C-alpha cells in the first residue's frame, strides 16, 4: 500500500487541535454527556472506549456539530464549532458557516455512508469540487492518488454497492481525506464488517496514523488501540472515566467501569489463537 | 313567452284521473309486451317535460304524463328510469329499456337506430342573460360571432353546430359551440358569461327563464323548422306493432282532448299536434 502522501500535519505548536470544554448534551430529559473535557494535540491518535450508550458517538458528533451541544463548547483549530464569540456571548452561526467549519474535520461512519448514486471517484470529487470549489481536474489526480493508497484505484468507476464492506469503508476514508481535514473522526469504522475484512481497514488507518494525521477513533478493536493509539480515553456515564496511554488504561485499568468493560470484551476469547 | 305553470309540489300528475284501458287498443299490442304488462321507459331530467319532484316521489312533466296516459289506454304500467340524456338512445340500442321519453327530438341520426311515435312539436329557442342586447334571432346571421352552449347529446348541440358551420361558410364572424354534460351546466356557464347564449327546446328555455327569476330572458329563434318530438321505441322484432299501438293510443289522447289539457297544464299550451306519426314510417 502506497504511503498516504499529502495528509501530513504539524505538531509544532502546543495548542490542542481539538479542545472539548465542559461539553454537555441531552436528548429530551436524557443526559447523554454530562461533562466532557478533552484536548487532542496535532498528530495524536486518540482511541475512545466505552460501553454501548456511554455517549462515544454523541461526543464525536459534537466535534463536527452533527449534534448541537446542550452546553459547553468544542474548539477545532481554535475556532468554536457552531458559534461565534461576540462580546461575552456565543452567537449561533448560520447553517452555511457551520458547513464551512465542518469541512475542516473528516468523519468516517460505522455504516460507510457512501453516496450510492455516485461512482467511487464521484464520491471523492463531490465535496472538494462543490464545497471548496477546486478544479475537478486537479482534484481528480489527488483522488486517484488517494484511491491508490487505499488500494482501490481500479474500482474508481464502479458504484459503491458492488464493493465489499471493507472496500466501501476504505473509499469512505479516502473521501474524507481528499478534503484535507486537519482531524479525522472515526465512529466504529470496522464494526459493520465481516471479521476477515476488518484487517484491511485497520491497515489503512494505521498507515494514516503513521503519516501524522490527527485521529479520534471510537472502536472496540483493542489490538488497534494498543498498537496505534497515543492516548486511550474510557468513557462512562457521560464523562471521561479514565484517560492515558494504552499501556496504562488497557493493561492496568484503575476505574471499576474500565475493568468491567475490558472483562466483558475478553470473555468470549477464552484463549488467544496460536 | 308565456311561462308554464310550476309543477304541483309532490303531486303525481294533473288532476285528471288516469284514462281507463281501451280493449281494442290493447289488442294491437305485441303479445310479449301485453304479457309483461309493464313498459320500462328511460327519461332524462328535462324540465318541464321530465321533472323529478324535489323531496322524492314520482316523476312528472308533460311528456311523462303523455306517456303514462297513452300506456294506461294500452293497459300498461310504466316504470320510468331517470338517466343522463346522452345515455338515452344508447340505452335503447342496448335494449336496457323498451322506450324513452322526454321531449326527444326526431332527427335523421336517431331514426336510424330507434323508432319514434310523435306527440308534440317544438321550436328551439335561445336563452340569454337578462341584460343581453340580443333579444331575438330572426335570421341565421344574427347568431354569428356568439359562443353558443348546448347540452351533450341533444339535437340542439347538432343544430348549434350547423349554425356555426353556416356562419363560417357565409363568411360571418366566427361562432363556437360548447357542449356541456347537462342543461344545468349550460345555464351555469351562461349565467357567468362563459357562453353568450344557450340553445334549448322552446319549452325548456321558457321553464329555465321562469325558474331563474329574472336572471335570463328568452331569445326567440325566427328561423329553423318546427321539430317533432315523441316517444322513442327500441328497435326489435316487436317495434312495428308496438309503434302502431302507441300511435293509436296517442291519437285517442288527441281526440279526447287529454293531450291538449296536459300541455296546457304543464307546458304553457305549447306544441300540441293534431295527429301522431310513426317515424320512420312503417314499410307496410
Amino acid at each position, binding site marked *: 500500500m502506497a504511503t498516504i502522501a499529502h495528509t501530513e500535519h504539524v505538531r509544532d505548536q502546543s495548542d490542542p487541535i481539538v479542545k472539548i470544554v465542559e461539553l454537555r448534551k441531552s436528548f429530551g430529559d436524557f443526559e447523554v454527556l454530562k461533562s466532557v473535557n478533552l484536548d487532542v494535540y496535532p498528530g495524536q491518535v486518540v482511541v475512545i472506549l466505552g460501553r454501548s450508550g456511554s455517549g462515544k458517538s454523541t461526543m464525536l458528533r459534537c466535534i463536527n456539530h452533527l449534534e448541537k451541544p446542550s452546553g459547553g463548547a468544542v474548539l477545532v483549530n481554535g475556532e468554536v464549532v457552531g458559534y461565534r464569540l461576540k462580546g461575552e456571548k456565543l452567537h449561533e452561526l448560520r447553517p452555511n458557516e457551520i458547513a464551512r467549519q465542518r469541512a475542516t474535520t473528516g468523519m468516517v461512519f460505522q455504516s460507510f455512508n457512501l453516496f450510492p448514486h455516485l461512482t467511487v471517484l464521484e464520491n471523492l470529487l463531490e465535496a472538494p469540487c462543490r464545497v471548496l470549489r477546486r478544479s475537478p481536474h486537479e482534484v481528480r489526480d489527488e483522488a486517484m492518488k488517494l484511491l491508490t493508497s487505499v488500494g482501490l484505484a481500479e474500482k474508481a468507476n464502479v458504484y459503491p454497492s458492488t464493493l465489499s464492506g471493507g472496500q466501501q469503508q476504505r473509499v469512505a476514508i479516502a473521501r474524507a481525506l481528499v478534503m484535507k*481535514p486537519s482531524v479525522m473522526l472515526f465512529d466504529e469504522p470496522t464494526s459493520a464488517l465481516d471479521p476477515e475484512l476488518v484487517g484491511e481497514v485497520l491497515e489503512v488507518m494505521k498507515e494514516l496514523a503513521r503519516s501524522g494525521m490527527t485521529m479520534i477513533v471510537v472502536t472496540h478493536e483493542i489490538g488497534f488501540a494498543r498498537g496505534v493509539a497515543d492516548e486511550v480515553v474510557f468513557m462512562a456515564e457521560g464523562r471521561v472515566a479514565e484517560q492515558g496511554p494504552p499501556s496504562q488504561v488497557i493493561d492496568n485499568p484503575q476505574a471499576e467501569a474500565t475493568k468491567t468493560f475490558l472483562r466483558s470484551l475478553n470473555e468470549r476469547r477464552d484463549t488467544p489463537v496460536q | 313567452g308565456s311561462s308554464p305553470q310550476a309543477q304541483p309540489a309532490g303531486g303525481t300528475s294533473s288532476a285528471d284521473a288516469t284514462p281507463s284501458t281501451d280493449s281494442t287498443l290493447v289488442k294491437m299490442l305485441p303479445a310479449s309486451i301485453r304479457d309483461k304488462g309493464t313498459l320500462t321507459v328511460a327519461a332524462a331530467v328535462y324540465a318541464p317535460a321530465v321533472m323529478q319532484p324535489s323531496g322524492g316521489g314520482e316523476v312528472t312533466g308533460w311528456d311523462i304524463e303523455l306517456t303514462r296516459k297513452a300506456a294506461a289506454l294500452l293497459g300498461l304500467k310504466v316504470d320510468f328510469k331517470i338517466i343522463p340524456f346522452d345515455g338515452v338512445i344508447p340505452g335503447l340500442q342496448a335494449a336496457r329499456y323498451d322506450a324513452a321519453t322526454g321531449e326527444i327530438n326526431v332527427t335523421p341520426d336517431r331514426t336510424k337506430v330507434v323508432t319514434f311515435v310523435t306527440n308534440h312539436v317544438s321550436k328551439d329557442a335561445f336563452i340569454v342573460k337578462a341584460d343581453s342586447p340580443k333579444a331575438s334571432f330572426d335570421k341565421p346571421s344574427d347568431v354569428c360571432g356568439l359562443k353558443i352552449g348546448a347540452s351533450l347529446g341533444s339535437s340542439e348541440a347538432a343544430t348549434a353546430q350547423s349554425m356555426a358551420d353556416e356562419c363560417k361558410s357565409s363568411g360571418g364572424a366566427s361562432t363556437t359551440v360548447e357542449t356541456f354534460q347537462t342543461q344545468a351546466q349550460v345555464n351555469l356557464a351562461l349565467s357567468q358569461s362563459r357562453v353568450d347564449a344557450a340553445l334549448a327546446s322552446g319549452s325548456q328555455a321558457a321553464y329555465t327563464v321562469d325558474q331563474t327569476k329574472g336572471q335570463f330572458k328568452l331569445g326567440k329563434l325566427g328561423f329553423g323548422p318546427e321539430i317533432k318530438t315523441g316517444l322513442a321505441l327500441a328497435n326489435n322484432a316487436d317495434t312495428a306493432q308496438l309503434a302502431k299501438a302507441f300511435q293509436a293510443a296517442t291519437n285517442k289522447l288527441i281526440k279526447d282532448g287529454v293531450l291538449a289539457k296536459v300541455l296546457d297544464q304543464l307546458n304553457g299550451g305549447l306544441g300540441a299536434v293534431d295527429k301522431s306519426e310513426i317515424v320512420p314510417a312503417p314499410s307496410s
Partner: protein
Amino acid sequence: MESAKAKTHPQHTPSNAVSATSALTADQETLARETVPLRHHGRTVAAVFLLLVVANLAHSMVTNQNFQWPTVWHYLFFPEIMAGLGRTLILTVVSMTMAIVLGILLAACRLSGNKVLQAVAGAYLWFFRGTPLLIQLIFLYNLSALYPRLGIGVPFGGPELIGGSTNLVLSLWTVALVGLALHESAYMAEIVRGGLLSVPKHQTEAAAALGMNNVMAFGRIILPQALRVIVPPTGNQVIGMLKYSSLVSVIALPDLLYSAQMIYTQTFETIPLLIVVSFWYLLCTSILTLFQQRIERYYGRGVAGQSTTPGRGRILGLGMPRKRVRTTLSSTTAEEG
C-alpha cells in the same frame, strides 16, 4: 510509536483553519455560558403572509352572498342527498371488498411460478390500468350491445350451459359494483404484490425452518407483516374510491354527486349543492383518514420507530433521533430480501 510521528513535516498549516486562536484563550466560563440562537426571518415572514391569505379567504367565504349559505343549509340533510350518500358508501364498501379479494388473487397469479397465470394477470392489469374507469363503466353498461346474452358454455360456438340476457345479469348495481371492482382490483393487485414482496425473505425462511407449511407461513407470518405495507395505500384507495365512485353517474346510478346534479339540473342552484356535496365528501374522507391512521397504528405494532409525523427538520436538519444500526437488523435489513 512517538518516534513514527516525529517524522511528520512541519510546513503544512491546516488549510481551513481561518480565524484567530482567540477562542482558545477565552475563559471556560464564557464557553459554558448560554448561547444566542439564530433567528429565521424568512420563515416568519412566509408564515405571517400565509396566515393573512387564509384569514382573508375565510372572511370572504362568510361574507360573500354568492355562496348562498341558506340554500346550502336547506339541502344539507335533504332526503335525496342522504340517499345518494348512502349509495356512495355502499358502492365504496362493496366494490372495495370485491377489489381487495380480486387483487389478492391477481397478486398471487403475478407472483406464481406459472408463466400462463403471470401473463394473463399481466394483461388484465395492462388493460384495466390503461383505460379510464369511465370508459370501462360505459362499456360494461353497454355490453349487451356486444353480447346480448352472457353465459357459460362450450367454447368456440358450442351450446350454452347456463346463461341469461346480459341486461338481466348486469343490472345497474351489478354494472356499477363490478365495474368499480374490476378497475380497482388492478390497482389493489399491485399494492398487495408490493406488500408481500416487502416482507423480508428471512421471515419466510424462519417460518419454514420452524416447520410451518406454506399456508401457515403465509397466513400467520407473511400476510400480517405485509398488511403493514398494504394498509396505508389501501386506505388511500378507499378514499379514492369514495370519490371516483361518482363516475357511476354516467350509468345513472344516483350516488351522492349525481343526486345533487339531478336537483340542480332542475333548480339551477348549482354552487350551493356542490358545496353540500363537498361537505359530505370531506366529512367521509376525514373519517376514513382517522380510521386509516388507527389501523396503521395497529398493524405497525412491534415495529420500532413507527411515528408517522416526522419531527422538525428531519430532512435538512440533523437533530433527529438516531437508531442503532445493529440491534434492529432483524426487522429492517428486511428491505434487502
